[in-house]
């Protein structure tokens, strides 16, 4: 089987400093592959190896059948890329910058207009006058303006507001529907869950897991905080995937692994004053890859319905 991206034993060391170590994975055609990891885990190093910016210390990577290092330019013919903090020339307007990239990619002038309108980007403003979020929009527009078979995106939504993140996810869906492939690096777990088919998890330079999103969802932990109107029955939270972190008369803090539905069914019999369910910060999720449980008491990001 031919893969769009195939990395085998990919290793990069910067002298004594760790880069990535023995990373092996494959991405199939028309797949949205999430690449998750905390800051400094090796996501950007992996992407730079895939784009031929870095020479592997060991191992090889192939992108669309081309050796990522030796034959980078040939691979790039069919690749659109956006970095986590795109650096543009301050004196150019967003339109000039995008036209420059379009010309380098063999696209027509103004190929970016439709995507720019969807992301509400004002193309007439000089890049140096744009906010961080708007500069990031330029990067996202640049990634989606062509029809290359492979999009490589390094934390493309950092700095985007929630509305634009939603538009980004819609663009990802359209790209997938068009049969194209996406490699999406992120440290935003919910975003990866919504956008991706499969997820690779990298931590301290090593790929610790590659699984489908549903497998990931089944294995990762959520934090549930309850404020009850009355003390609950003693066994109400006794479920195989639920741990009671703390419980007082009315305040209960639970950790739930995977499916929350069994817990929600139990809660139907309890008078609840308030409830919040939070996804854990990704660093806490990664701890689960070491000891099998999340870091109890870690700060969680609340997602209220």
């Amino acid at each position, binding site marked *: 089987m031919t893969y769009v991206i195939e990395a085998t034993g990919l290793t990069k060391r*910067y002298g004594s400093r760790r880069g990535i170590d023995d990373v092996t994975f494959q991405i199939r055609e028309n797949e949205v592959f999430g690449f998750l990891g905390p800051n400094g885990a090796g996501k*950007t*190093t992996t992407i*730079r190896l895939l*784009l031929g*910016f*870095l*020479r592997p210390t060991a191992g090889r990577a192939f992108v669309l059948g081309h050796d990522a290092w030796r034959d*980078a*330019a*040939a691979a*790039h*013919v069919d*690749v659109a*890329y956006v*970095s986590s*903090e*795109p*650096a*543009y*020339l301050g004196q150019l307007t967003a339109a000039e910058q995008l036209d*420059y*990239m379009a*010309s*380098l*990619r*063999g696209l027509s002038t103004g190929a970016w207009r439709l995507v720019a309108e969807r992301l509400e980007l004002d193309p007439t403003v000089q890049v140096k006058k744009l906010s961080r979020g708007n500069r990031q929009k330029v990067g996202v527009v640049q990634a989606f303006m062509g029809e290359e078979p492979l999009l*490589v995106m390094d934390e493309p939504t950092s700095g985007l507001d929630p509305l634009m993140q939603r538009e980004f996810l819609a663009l990802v869906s359209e790209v997938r529907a068009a049969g194209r492939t996406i490699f999406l690096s992120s440290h935003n777990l919910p975003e990866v869950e919504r956008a991706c088919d499969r997820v690779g998890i990298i931590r301290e330079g090593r790929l610790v897991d590659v699984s489908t999103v549903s497998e990931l969802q089944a294995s990762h932990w959520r934090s549930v905080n309850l404020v009850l109107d009355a003390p609950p029955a003693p066994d109400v939270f006794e479920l195989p995937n639920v741990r009671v972190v703390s419980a007082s008369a009315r305040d209960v803090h639970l950790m739930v692994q995977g499916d929350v539905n069994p817990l929600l069914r139990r809660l139907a019999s309890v008078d609840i004053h308030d409830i919040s369910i939070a996804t854990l910060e990704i660093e806490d999720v990664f701890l689960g890859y070491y000891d099998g449980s999340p870091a109890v008491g870690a700060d969680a990001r609340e997602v209220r319905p």
Partner: protein
Amino acid sequence: MIPAFRLELRRGRMLVLSVGLVSVLYAGGITLFYPTILENAADFEKLMEIYPKELMAAFGIVGSIGDPGTFLNSYIFQFLWPLVAAIVAILLATRPAADAETGFLDLPLSTRMPRLRYLTAAIAGQILALAVLAAMTIGAIWAVDLLIEPNFPLDRLVLSGVHALTFGLAIAGVSTLLAIIFLDRGRAGGLAAGILIVMYLLNVLAQLSPDMADLGRLSAFRYFNLKELIDTGTYPVGDSLLYMSFALGGWLLALWAFRWRDLAA
């Protein structure tokens, strides 16, 4: 390569225009004084006699100040051009390093453009910028020459511009190599400027002290003397070839190194 080259030109135009304007004003302004200097050559030479000949030679003033070669070489080419060439060549040649530092380099290199083509476009931009500056400087001298009519020979002026250009290209070639080795504009630019300052001092010391004359051979400034070319029409072929070998050597090594080196995040 065309879009990258166009962008190079766009990015370099303000630098070339501003430095070119200074060159034009300086070269044209100094040339305007040539008739006055001719009229008072004897007095000027008497005045100069108070300085040791070695010191005057160290700053390129050899022979009569009224000779076109001495005048143009010492007051314009040796004084103005090394500064102009060094500033522009170093700033343009170290731009790929600056682009790597900011991350801008990732944009063109993530497209179908090979690394070699990107750097070749940058080198072409350096050559064009220095050629335009040399032309502006020679053009200013020639334009004022038409006004004051000392009749500097145009062909010799043009050849002076060519030799001056090769001097600038040598700086650009070596600076490009340093930029690619370090991918750090500050280090590459600082080192290139430092080498030039040391070379300048070596040349001055070699002129001042016969014991150190051989050291002068190590200086690029030793080979940048246009007096004979302007006075006799003899082109310094060997000196130009020496500069071009440094220019081409620097660029070729830079292209080779750029193809194989890591572009760190």
